[in-house]
C-alpha cells in the first residue's frame, strides 16, 4: 500500500502509558499495529465512541464489551471514515440496575408520601396541643406582621389596623357574646385590617382577623358574627398552629424532592398550596359545625352563616378575584345547606343593634 501511515494512541486501561499504534481501516476491521507484538483487529460494528466530546475532530474509540480500553485518533481523514462506516458508534450500553432503580423509586415516593401525608400531619396534630400558649402567641405575632406586610401592594407600610373607638366597642361586644360560654385556651386577639379583600382568617395564638372588605359587603351584623364564630372554631381546634408546624415539616421535604432545578420555589409554593387546601377541607367543615353551635348558644341566628355564604356566591364565587378565599374554602353550596338545616326557630336576637352595627361598619373610617 502506498497510503501514508496513520497513527493513534492506544490506552490499554492497564497502565497510564499510551502505546503508539499504526491504524488501517479495512472493513470489517480496524487494524491496530503496535511497534512490537501482534496487530489487533477491532470489528467495526463493535466500535463505540463516547458522546458529548469537546474536540471537534478527534475521535475517541472503545469496544462494545470492553469498558476500559480507549483509542485516540487525531487524524481527521481516518476519523471521518470511521464515523461514516461504523454502524453503531453512538449506541448506548444496555441498562443496568433497572430493578434496583424501580425499587428505590417506589421506596422514595412511598417514604415522601408517608412523611408528608401521615407522619408530619400526625406529629403536627400532636405537637400543636403541647405548644405552650406563649409559643403560639409568638408564632401568631410573627405571622400576623408578615401577612400585614405581604398584603400591602403599593407602599412601604404594613396594612393599617382599624380601631375607631365605637367600632372596637361593637366588635368587643360581639366577641363577648360569642365567647361567654366557651373555654378558650387563651384570650382572643381580634383585628380588622383596612384592606378590600372579602375574607377573614385565624392565626396561631388566638388571632382572629377580619378584612374591611368583608364588613363592607355584609348587610347585617349576624353575617359578621357567623364568620367570627367560624374563625373562633379554627382557634379552638388549633388549626392555624397545626398548619404552621405542618408546613415547616413538609416544605423541607418537597424542596428536597424537586431540587433546585429552577430555584424550586415556584413548584414548592404550588405543591404546598395543594396540601394546605386538602388539609383545610376537614378543618373547615368542623369550624362550620362549631360556628353554628356557638351561634345557637349565644342566641344569634345561625342563618347569618348561610347568608354570608350566599353573599360570597352573589359576588361571584368563581371569579378569580375571590380565588384566594375559595381555594381555602371548599364547596360553598353544601355549607349553605348545612347552615340552613341547623336553623331552628328558637329565640334569637341580632348580634348587634343598629347603632353598634353602623359603628362596626365604619371602624376603618
Amino acid at each position: 500500500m502506498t497510503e501514508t501511515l496513520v497513527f493513534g494512541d492506544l490506552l490499554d486501561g492497564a497502565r497510564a502509558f499510551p502505546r503508539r499504534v499504526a491504524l488501517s481501516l479495512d472493513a470489517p476491521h480496524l487494524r491496530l499495529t503496535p511497534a512490537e507484538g501482534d496487530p489487533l483487529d477491532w470489528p467495526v460494528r463493535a466500535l463505540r465512541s463516547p458522546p458529548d466530546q469537546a474536540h471537534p475532530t478527534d475521535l475517541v474509540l472503545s469496544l462494545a464489551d470492553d469498558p476500559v480500553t480507549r483509542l485516540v485518533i487525531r487524524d481527521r481523514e481516518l476519523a471521518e471514515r470511521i464515523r461514516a462506516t461504523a454502524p453503531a458508534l453512538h449506541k448506548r450500553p444496555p441498562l443496568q440496575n433497572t430493578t434496583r432503580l424501580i425499587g428505590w423509586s417506589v421506596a422514595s415516593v412511598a417514604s415522601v408520601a408517608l412523611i408528608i401525608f401521615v407522619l408530619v400531619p400526625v406529629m403536627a396534630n400532636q405537637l400543636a396541643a403541647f405548644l405552650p400558649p406563649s409559643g403560639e402567641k409568638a408564632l401568631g405575632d410573627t405571622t400576623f406582621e408578615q401577612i400585614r406586610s405581604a398584603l400591602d401592594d403599593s407602599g412601604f407600610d404594613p396594612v393599617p389596623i382599624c380601631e375607631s373607638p365605637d367600632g372596637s366597642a361593637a366588635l368587643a361586644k360581639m366577641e363577648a357574646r360569642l365567647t361567654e360560654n366557651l373555654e378558650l385556651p387563651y384570650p382572643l386577639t381580634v383585628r380588622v385590617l383596612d384592606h378590600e379583600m372579602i375574607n377573614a382568617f385565624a392565626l396561631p395564638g388566638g388571632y382572629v382577623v377580619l378584612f374591611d372588605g368583608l364588613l363592607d359587603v355584609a348587610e347585617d351584623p349576624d353575617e359578621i358574627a357567623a364568620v367570627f364564630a367560624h374563625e373562633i372554631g379554627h382557634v379552638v381546634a388549633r388549626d392555624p398552629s397545626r398548619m404552621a408546624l405542618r408546613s415547616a415539616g413538609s416544605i423541607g421535604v418537597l424542596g428536597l424532592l424537586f431540587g433546585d432545578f429552577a430555584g424550586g420555589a415556584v413548584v414548592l409554593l404550588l405543591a404546598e398550596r395543594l396540601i394546605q387546601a386538602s388539609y383545610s377541607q376537614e378543618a373547615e367543615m368542623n369550624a362550620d359545625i362549631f360556628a353554628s353551635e356557638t351561634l345557637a348558644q349565644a342566641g344569634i341566628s345561625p342563618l347569618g352563616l348561610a347568608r354570608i355564604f350566599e353573599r360570597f356566591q352573589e359576588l361571584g364565587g368563581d371569579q378569580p378575584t375571590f380565588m384566594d378565599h375559595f381555594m381555602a374554602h371548599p364547596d360553598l353550596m353544601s355549607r349553605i345547606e348545612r347552615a340552613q338545616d341547623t336553623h331552628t326557630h328558637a329565640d334569637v336576637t341580632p348580634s348587634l343593634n343598629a347603632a353598634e352595627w353602623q359603628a362596626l361598619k365604619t371602624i376603618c373610617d
Partner: protein
Amino acid sequence: MSDALGTEFVGRKGPYFWLSLKTGVLTILTLGFYRFWMKTRLRRYMWSAIRPGGHPMEYLGTPLEKLLGFLVAVVFLAFYIGIVNLILMFASFSLFAGNGAAYGLSFVGILPIIFFAQYRARRYILARTRWRGIRFGLEPGAWGYAWRAALHWLVTIASVGILFPRQVFHLEKYRADRTFFGTQRLHQGGRWQMLFPAMKHLIIAVFLIAGSLLAGQNGDQVAFFSLPLGIGWLGYGAIYFRVESLRLLTDHKTLGDIRLQAAPRAGQVMKIYSVGYLIVYTVVGAGFFALFILLFAGFMAMIGSATQLDETFDIEMIQALSNTPVWLTTILTIMLYFTIFLMWNVLSQVFVGLPLAAHYAQTFSVLEQRHLTDVSQRPRDEFAEAEGFAEALDVGAAI
C-alpha cells in the same frame, strides 16, 4: 529535555452553549428530572475538553446511577428533614418564642450531613473520572471528613477567621491523601502556614473596611470613597485567596515521584469573573428590557385601538385588563421566571464556568511525567449511591 506534560483545553463557547441550553430546557420541561442527564452530559463535555498531555479526561458517570443515588438519599433525608424541621419549629416556639432559633438550629443540624455529602460527591466524581484509561479514586472516609470539617469550622469561627488557612490545608490534605490515580496514592505536602501569605488581600480589605466605618462614624468624608474600595478589595481578596491557595496546594502535591504544578493567576480569574458576569447581566438585562418594551407596546396598542373606536379611556379599562384570568398570568409569570433562570444558568456556564475551567486547565502541568509508566489500573468503585446526598441537599454536586 523537559519532562513536563502541559494541559490543553479544547472546549468552545458555541457547542457548550447549545449543549447547556438544550439540556436546561429539557430539565425545566421534565420538572427537574432531566437534571441528572444534564449534569452527566455537561460533565462529559467539560472533562473531554481538558487534555493533559493531549489525552482527554473521560467522565463515565451515568444519569441513571445519579437518579438512583438521589432516590436513595431522598428515602433517608425526607425522614430526617421532615421530622427534624417540624420538631425544631416546635421546640423553637415553645422555648424561645420565635422562629429564628429554628432556622439556625435546622441549619446547624444539617451541616455535618452537608460535609458528609460533599465528600461522597467527590468520591463519586473521582471514581468516574479517567485519564489515559486509568481510573481516579477516593478512599471511603466521609464521616471522618464530616466531623473534622465541623471542628475546623468551629476553630475558624472562634479565631475570627485567622485560622482559616489551617482549615483549608487540613481538609484538603485529608481529601488529597485519600485520592488515587490508578494504583498511585496522591500526597499533600507542605505546611498550613504556607497559606498565610495568600490571605494578604483579605486582611488589607478588612482593615480598609474597618477604617472606613470608623472614619464614617467620625463624619470623615473619606469613607464615601474608601468603603466601596474596601468592599471591592474584599472581593478581590477572596478570589486571590482561592487562586493562591489552590496554586500552593497543587504545587505541594506528589503522586509517587510525579509532581504537580499549577500556575493560575488571580488577576486573570478576577478578569474572567468580571467580564463574564458583565456579559451575563447585560444579556439577561437586555432580554428583560425587550420584554418590557413589548408589553408596554401591547398595552399602548390596546389603548390606541380603544380611542379610535371613540371610547373614552377610563378606569374600567384598567380593571378589564386586570381581570385577565389568574391562571393565565400565573402561567406567564412562571414561564418568565424559568426563562430568566435558564438564561442565567446557561450564560454563566458559558461565560464564566468555561473560561475558568480553561484557565485552570491551561496553567496545570504534570512534572516528572516519565514515572507515569509506573501507574497501573485500580478496580472499579461501584458506589451505587453516587452523589445522591449532595444532589438532594444541593451542595458540592455542581458540575
